[in-house]
């Protein structure tokens, strides 16, 4: 029986075909088709792109409006309970079982996932230790800091030892050190422990550090599925340039040297440089057009915007 959850070890981790998800009249996902083999995969896209909706659909928390989806070889919407025993989910929102300590909450999550009491207790201690929560495990979750709450959510997602882990914005609200520690934990799971990880984030750096491939979503549609290396090769750097001299000549010179001019104001323009193109080219353009560069500074464009630009999303 190919639909049985246990017979899916060789199947792609995620297989979506023409998936559409709707919240009332609003379409959250439209015609998403992708096949993900496994490993650590990033879900990238700006807020509202449909990353969380995709995860919730895979967990069968949101019904499919159209299309078919399989997780670990199991059709979504059938065998949901058995499928969820093999999936761990760390949600984006701050959430906790009320009135419980870290240990109790993790143990309870294990019990709800079908673990026997003794196993749930043992595993709760193990994953709390793994998540670096051993000293705070007997404190009420309500007294935890944001970083500790993220860790306890990760421990709860791991307690039943899932084959596939969905992490929805796991570094939300974390300081740089906390973020780095969280990503280290996720990398360990994906690389050393053989757990498939689907990491949803709007931060390209989080995905870069952990994942080997990326699915980019925008406006509920899949824009691209590629390896991180492919995407990095295609990403352009943006620079803001202020000049004295003829703006038209400078723009023409830039375009002549293969630079993309994105936005122009009176004496200021924004240039996009492909990774293999040096900043020196800008000075060459200035020399050619007899313009004087007053200011040349990299523009902090949001990473996902740059990514979507590269992929032709605009």
């Amino acid at each position, binding site marked *: 029986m190919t639909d049985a959850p246990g017979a899916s070890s060789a199947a792609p981790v995620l297989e979506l075909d023409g998936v559409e998800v709707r919240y009332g009249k609003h379409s959250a996902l439209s015609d998403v088709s992708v096949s993900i083999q496994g490993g650590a995969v990033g879900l990238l896209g700006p807020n509202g792109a449909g990353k969380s909706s995709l995860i919730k659909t895979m*967990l069968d928390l949101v019904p499919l409006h159209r299309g078919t989806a399989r997780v670990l070889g199991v059709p979504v919407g059938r065998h949901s309970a058995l499928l969820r025993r093999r999936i761990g989910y760390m949600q984006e929102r701050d959430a906790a079982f009320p009135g419980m300590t870290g240990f109790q909450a993790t143990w309870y999550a294990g019990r709800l996932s079908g673990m026997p009491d003794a196993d749930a207790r043992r595993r709760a201690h193990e994953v709390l230790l793994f998540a670096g929560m051993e000293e705070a495990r007997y404190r009420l979750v309500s007294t935890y800091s944001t970083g500790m709450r993220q860790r306890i959510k990760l421990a709860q997602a791991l307690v039943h030892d899932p084959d596939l882990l969905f992490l929805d914005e796991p570094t939300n609200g974390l300081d740089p050190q906390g973020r780095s520690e969280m990503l280290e934990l996720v990398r360990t799971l994906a690389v*050393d422990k053989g757990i498939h990880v689907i990491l949803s984030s709007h931060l390209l750096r989080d995905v870069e550090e952990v994942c080997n491939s990326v699915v980019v979503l925008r406006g509920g549609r899949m824009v691209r599925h590629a390896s991180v290396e492919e995407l990095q090769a295609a990403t352009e750097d943006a620079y803001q340039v202020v000049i004295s001299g003829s703006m038209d000549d400078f723009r023409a010179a830039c375009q002549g040297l293969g630079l993309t001019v994105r936005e122009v104001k009176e004496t200021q323009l924004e240039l996009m440089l492909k990774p293999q193109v040096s900043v020196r080219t800008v000075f060459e353009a200035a020399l050619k057009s007899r313009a004087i560069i007053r200011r040349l500074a990299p523009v902090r464009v949001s990473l996902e915007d740059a990514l979507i630009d590269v992929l032709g999303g605009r």
Partner: protein
Amino acid sequence: MVIHDRSYARWESDRSKPVRATWVIMDRGVTTAFAQIFKRKLLGQLLSFWAFGPFLFAVGLLYAGFYLRSNQESFGDAFAALQQTDLLAQVTPSAQTVWQYFMEVQIWVCLVITVVVGAGLIAEDRRVNALEMYLSRPLAVWQYVLGKLAIIAFFLALVTVIPVCLLITLQAFLDGFEAEETARLADLMLRSVVVGALYVGVLSILILAVSALSRRARNASILWVGLIVMVEGVLSSNLQANFLSPSTQLMSLYFNLSHCAAWVLGNETVLAANAGVSVGDSAMVLGAWCALALTVLLRRIRPVEIVA
């Protein structure tokens, strides 16, 4: 802080066994509720005394009656005096006393229990976004609802059905399992269990629906108590008798419960007092309340809240 990967190991186990989620939720919920009640020792003791005082009093009196009757040579006058006070008749299990235990003696305790235990069952989960955590696990909405229902039902049964059944069993023991009396008590126990199921079931599902309407236990409590006070207050017996038609009593939860309970127990006194309204109508109103509560529960308990 250095992260040490020193503990994570894969968990090898059979995952095909069904998840007993309802039991897990009930087990944890009951433990947590007991801990909350007894966190304040005095409150816990007072509530326990209030809940089980009448039962312990009845047990003591039944045993005292039995002891005095068995030793009539020594305590003949005392037994006669006890019989004259009518106290024994008030605690000896019968259709009338069981109805009184449910509808008069324990009704206030049950109201307090629904507030203390029931009001926060779903409201608190909604406040801390725990619904998504529950429903992303291998359990269905109905298992979650049933688990929560079982928590409040456990406490209500603990102070109503279980004491009644224990009293009936005690009476059977004290009567020495005399055939005719045992048959009467067995019939009474069966009817009491049916009444208990109705009583506990209706109260549990209603407080759960009220709890699902709010994100705060306190707000759910206010809503629940407000509804009860308003409806039952308006339909209080004096006002009812003087100004309202008998059928308006169908709005009262207490009236419908007591009416159905009296019918199941065969309590003719109460049935005669409620002669203006049929038992079928009361049962239908209770059924409608429960259907409405279930609808509320199924609409409110969703893993994803959709904001239009």
